[in-house]
């Protein structure tokens, strides 16, 4: 069985196992902005390729983790756009995110093209020449201007700015710790929980964080997760039932 969290990564911004990357990201010690998630996908596919048979469980687990990371990254890249994106249909939102990620990637590529141009030093004179022509002075006249331009300029300065949007506050990412506590409290009172039922009514951002909190608790052996089949309900229980787990998130 392939343990996804043990996947060894060698990225520009991070080197080590996948689960360490996850916890560093959750603790804000590594910025997702710097992590090339496509490289993570390639590393995973590479490991899969080395094995004889397709490990569906590992694939499922990996997809859940990588999509959570992608969502986190996307939201980090477009902090002001959460409200707008949340209002879109999921497919449209995904397309919009992909479009913006591509836009950002192109901006980065253009920046590196510019940086290459700078590597070749170019010297030219900034400002006027030390000596001009004998008897000629730089006296640049201004052509006649319309006074209405002044009035228009001042009117533009008097335009009040748009009211700041407060929509993002409703969608801000709650701290993972808050959900860690919530799951612990629930498990103290009940032995078996259904993920979908517990997160009903939460925003997409909150559901993502709730799931990350779950993975964190699972890693610390505080609970067990069970999913009969891909897309089947996720059942959460106390760790005693751990041996019957159908899909394995590596412990410790």
């Amino acid at each position: 069985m392939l343990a996804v969290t043990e996947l060894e990564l060698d990225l520009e911004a991070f080197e080590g196992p996948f689960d360490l990357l996850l916890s560093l990201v959750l603790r804000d010690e590594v910025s997702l902005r710097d992590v090339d998630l496509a490289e993570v996908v390639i590393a995973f596919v590479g490991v899969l390729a080395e094995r004889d048979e397709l490990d569906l469980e590992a694939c499922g687990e990996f997809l859940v983790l990588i999509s959570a990371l992608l969502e986190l990254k996307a939201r980090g890249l477009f902090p002001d756009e959460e409200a707008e994106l949340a209002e879109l249909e999921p497919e449209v939102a995904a397309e919009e995110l992909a479009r913006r990620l591509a836009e950002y990637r192109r901006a980065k590529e253009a920046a590196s093209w510019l940086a290459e141009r700078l590597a070749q030093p170019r010297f030219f004179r900034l400002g006027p020449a030390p000596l001009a022509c004998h008897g000629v002075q730089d006296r640049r006249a201004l052509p006649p201007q319309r006074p209405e331009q002044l009035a228009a300029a001042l009117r533009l300065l008097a335009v009040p700015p748009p009211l700041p949007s407060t929509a993002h506050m409703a969608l801000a990412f709650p701290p993972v710790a808050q959900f860690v506590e919530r799951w612990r409290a629930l498990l103290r009172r009940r032995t078996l929980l259904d993920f979908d039922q517990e997160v009903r009514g939460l925003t997409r951002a909150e559901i993502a964080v709730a799931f990350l909190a779950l993975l964190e608790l699972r890693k610390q052996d505080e609970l067990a997760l069970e999913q009969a089949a891909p897309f089947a309900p996720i059942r959460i229980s106390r760790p005693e039932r751990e041996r019957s787990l159908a899909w394995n998130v590596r412990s410790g």
Partner: protein
Amino acid sequence: MERPLRLISTNPLDELARTIEALLVVASQPLSLEELVAATADEAVRVEEALEVLGERYREGRSGIVLERVAGGWAFRASTAAAAACARLFERPVERGLSQAALETLAVIAYLGPCTRPEVTRIRGVNVDGVVAGLVERGLVAEAGRDEEFGAIRYRTTPLFERVFGLESLAALPRLDDLGAGADEIRARLETVAAQRSA
């Protein structure tokens, strides 16, 4: 062709070329063809011919002064062979220490054309107010009016930007499609892995 231009003083084109040399050595910005035509009071065709002659005379490897087509006009700069000597005497305050954030912001403004800080922020994902202020200070971007709807200031790149990066105009920026393969590259690598797997 090897006879030096400057010795043929009876040739009127040579005289025009000398006048253009003079204009370029005192101008503080690249001079456009129209500006050269107006200042020399000559014909555009002849000015272009003279510029061609000067381009041959003042070219890399042949002269320490190099004539280049940049920022929509013509300007002299130092030859690259003299870059080390220039670096001992002059600073490059405009481009020294440009951060990655500054380069990305410049790239966005150069490609999008006049845009506001919120627009750049949307693409870069982080607040760019400080970065834009720094670029304005360096003279690489400048204000370009206000957004009519919200009154936010728009920014554009300056001719100095084109000069520093040696661009004939903004049209000389590479097409974004040409930059990196992006998605295609990832797909190709995945396909390689898949091929290994099925082998």
